[in-house]
């Protein structure tokens, strides 16, 4: 009996290691969990793209569930998610506010004219300071913000169909 237990020990250690490696494979080191989840969305007031006399502040969306999508004309991954954003705006499921990050108005307008504008409005963060307040480190990033102005979810990188179907839309529906 004791002999057979000893024989199983390396196998047990091996299985533990496999468990660790399997868990490690699923972790993405590029995805840094945001400390802002379940915290109030940082306040800002920024000019709107295409309407220099108007500004936008998260305060304006109080009482609504909305998405803040950080994007830029120079960001190629933003083009990946763009068709999904267009689809969302067609379905009118949730207000989509853009935050144009470290970009020029001319370039941003160029992209929106060419590919379509899914946003209710776009705020322009030309020097990236609001981006720092939101912990943006890789565009595109999307925040789900609830009626009380609290960040409930952050999508790092392009929104995928799976993320939209399994995470973002169920969360938005629940919050609405």
């Amino acid at each position: 009996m004791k002999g057979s237990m000893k024989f199983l020990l390396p196998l047990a250690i091996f299985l533990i290691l496999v468990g660790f490696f399997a868990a490690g494979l699923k972790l993405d080191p590029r995805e840094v969990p945001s400390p802002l989840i379940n915290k109030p969305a940082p306040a800002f007031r920024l000019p709107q793209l295409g309407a220099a006399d108007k500004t936008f502040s998260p305060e304006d969306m109080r009482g609504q569930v909305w998405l803040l999508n950080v994007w830029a004309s120079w960001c190629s991954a933003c083009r990946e998610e763009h068709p999904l954003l267009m689809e969302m705006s067609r379905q009118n499921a949730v207000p989509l506010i853009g935050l144009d990050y470290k970009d020029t108005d001319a370039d941003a307008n160029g992209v929106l004219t060419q590919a379509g504008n899914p946003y209710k409005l776009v705020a322009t963060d030309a020097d990236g300071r609001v981006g720092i307040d939101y912990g943006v480190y890789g565009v595109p990033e999307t925040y789900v913000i609830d009626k009380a102005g609290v960040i409930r979810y952050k999508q790092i990188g392009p929104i995928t169909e799976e993320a939209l179907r399994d995470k973002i839309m169920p969360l938005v529906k629940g919050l609405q």
Partner: protein
Amino acid sequence: MMKKLMVILLLLSPLLVGAEARPLGDDPAIEARLKSLSQELRCLVCQNQTLADSSAPLAEDLRREIRELITKGMTDKEITDYLVARYGDFVRYRPPMKPQTALLWVGPGLLLLAGLGGLWFTLRKRNAQLPDDNEEGEEA
């Protein structure tokens, strides 16, 4: 005459071009603090580089931000906390001791203890077996 003037102008031109390299900031004390702080902070774009090393645009923005916070008179701890509030503990190269990071800190010690324990057990077992071997030796 014209030729001489041209030659003189040509000889003088390096003086105009070769000005001293512009310092990155005006106050060397601030730059020194920025350097020591940013060596403790991770660039989130190139995650294996410090904020001091990275040339990613975000790292430049964050250095600018830190420079301004230093000018405002914030302490190193306040500045680190400012960044942790936005990017999480991941931004620090020295993670703090917290319940979530306890395994990270005590893990190596636990492994060492487990190894020492294993060694102690094996040695004791071998010691216990030694007299048997001697008896066998005497019999032979």
